[in-house]
């Protein structure tokens, strides 16, 4: 009889422990469901609740990691980095540490703190523990450069993984499509409007050339007709204005064209690229 009673009591105690474990698991699954439904605010709340009541720290790393991901999903990169750093401290094993570290880097890429992302990548590369992860390190280095609008360096980073890596080809293509702002300005000094034509703004370039030609004619005509004062006024207020305007236009068009090219590539990465993204 005693043995039976002892058995029943032990069973009850066991059931209690299992039930408590189940409770945490249920909570973790509930938070995960919210995360999957992209309800990041609620997901963070439930992961935080789990963190508080998980006295055995069974879900600590996963909850912190997921909180980081939720904050990242909501574009709160400072908070994301804070929780990924917590996850890194509570990580068990190399893989978990690497996952948390790369998430910190990815958040830095998205936050556009490129220098910090590159610094962390350098540290990761130097760490012999992660020697087997060199491709991943170069992959994120490439992304960091792309977000910093440095497509040439991005292409170099992706080429280290694979010379025909799709992102290497994209970075190369973007870099080649870009125009030189200095060249656009210099040719506009020599021939007004040429810089605009070089950046693809043909009509604007031709108009600029025509206005400069006309204003130049009026200025020279005034001087040759001994209307020195008129010559100075037209030269200063009209010709010089058009001449300077053509150089400024060339610079603005070149900068804008480069922004458009970079944005087109970034849009492709955001909407069509199937690989892993920051």
């Amino acid at each position: 009889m005693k043995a039976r009673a002892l058995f029943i009591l032990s069973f009850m105690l066991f059931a209690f422990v299992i039930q408590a474990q189940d409770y945490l698991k249920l909570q973790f699954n509930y938070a995960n469901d919210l995360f999957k439904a992209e309800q990041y605010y609620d997901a963070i709340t439930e992961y935080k609740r789990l963190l508080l009541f998980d006295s055995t720290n069974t879900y600590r790393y996963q909850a912190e990691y997921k909180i980081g991901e939720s904050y990242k999903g909501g574009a709160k990169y400072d908070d994301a980095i804070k929780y990924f750093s917590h996850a890194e401290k509570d990580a068990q094993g190399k893989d978990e540490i690497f996952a948390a570290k790369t998430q910190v880097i990815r958040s830095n890429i998205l936050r556009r703190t490129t220098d910090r992302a590159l610094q962390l990548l350098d540290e990761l590369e130097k760490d012999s523990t992660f020697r087997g992860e060199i491709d991943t390190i170069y992959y994120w280095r490439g992304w960091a450069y792309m977000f910093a609008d440095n497509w040439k360096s991005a292409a170099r980073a992706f080429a280290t993984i694979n010379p025909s890596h799709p992102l290497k080809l994209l970075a190369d293509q973007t870099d080649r499509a870009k125009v030189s702002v200095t060249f656009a300005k210099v040719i506009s000094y020599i021939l007004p409007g040429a810089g605009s034509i070089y950046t693809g703004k043909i009509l604007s370039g031709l108009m600029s050339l025509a206005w400069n030609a006309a204003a130049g004619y009026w200025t020279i005509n005034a001087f040759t007709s001994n209307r020195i004062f008129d010559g100075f006024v037209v030269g200063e207020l009209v010709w010089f204005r058009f001449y300077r305007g053509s150089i400024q236009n060339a610079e603005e068009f070149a900068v804008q064209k480069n922004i458009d090219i970079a944005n087109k590539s970034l849009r492709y990465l955001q909407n069509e690229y199937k690989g892993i993204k920051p």
Partner: protein
Amino acid sequence: MKLSAAHKNGSLQIAVLLIFLMPILNFAQTSYNNSGLFSPVNRLKFGNYLFADKDYLRASAEFKEYLKSFDDDTVRFNYSLCLFNIGKYEEASDNFKTLFYGNPFTEKARLYFYESYFFGKDYKELRDLADNQNYKSVLYSKGIERLKNISYLMDDSRLPEMNSFLSVFDDSVQSRIAKFYYQKKNPKHKNPVTAAIFSAIIPGSGKIYTGEIGDGITAFITTALSAYLAYSNFKADHNFRGWLFTGLTAFFYSGNVYGSAASAQIYNARIRFNFDKEVKIYFGERNYFLPKSDY
């Protein structure tokens, strides 16, 4: 099949044990549910954890749920503080109001009640409540008076008499606050009509009056040069160019008159903007002379 007496006895014992265990198991289940993560007690625990972590938005939601089950002054006060900290001042003041009588938070709740109006920028209501001595605080009456007086510097209301305005502030800061008082009472504004008249008489002078000296000189030179070109072209019988420059002169002249009036308005807006900024920085750095929060 017949059961032996001993077997019968054993089965009976198990049945009795189970009958006793059923309520225990039931109790265990009930207590387990009550101590689940979403029980009021655990919601309070979680709320306090979030509150300490300064995650006031989430903490407010947990406190709110707890208050549905239990009415507790401490939780109500912390809930109100959460609302206050996330900028829900109207809700915060309503909740602080429920703590005005018969609890240890009476005095603090009254101070935060007035603070809610102040930081919610409802300055008029704050002054009305303070003037009518509604919900008077014994401990924080001076702090509330200071808030009320600072609020006069924040909006376009009429300033009170200077001595009563300054009396609530410490002697050490009175001279600086007196400067704010004078700046507010007699702002160094420029009259847009005067600026326009100045520029109508001498082009550019209205701009110089509003402090835009470079613009004023440029406007004067441009208008004068354009007028001279009109005159010289008419004199040389270049009538087309004469009219062209006359039109240009009229354009520069009228543009400058209008521009001078606009410049005076911009000047006044800048004065107001800088004053507001200075007031906010000065009082903000000193936490509006409010007592230090202990939460």
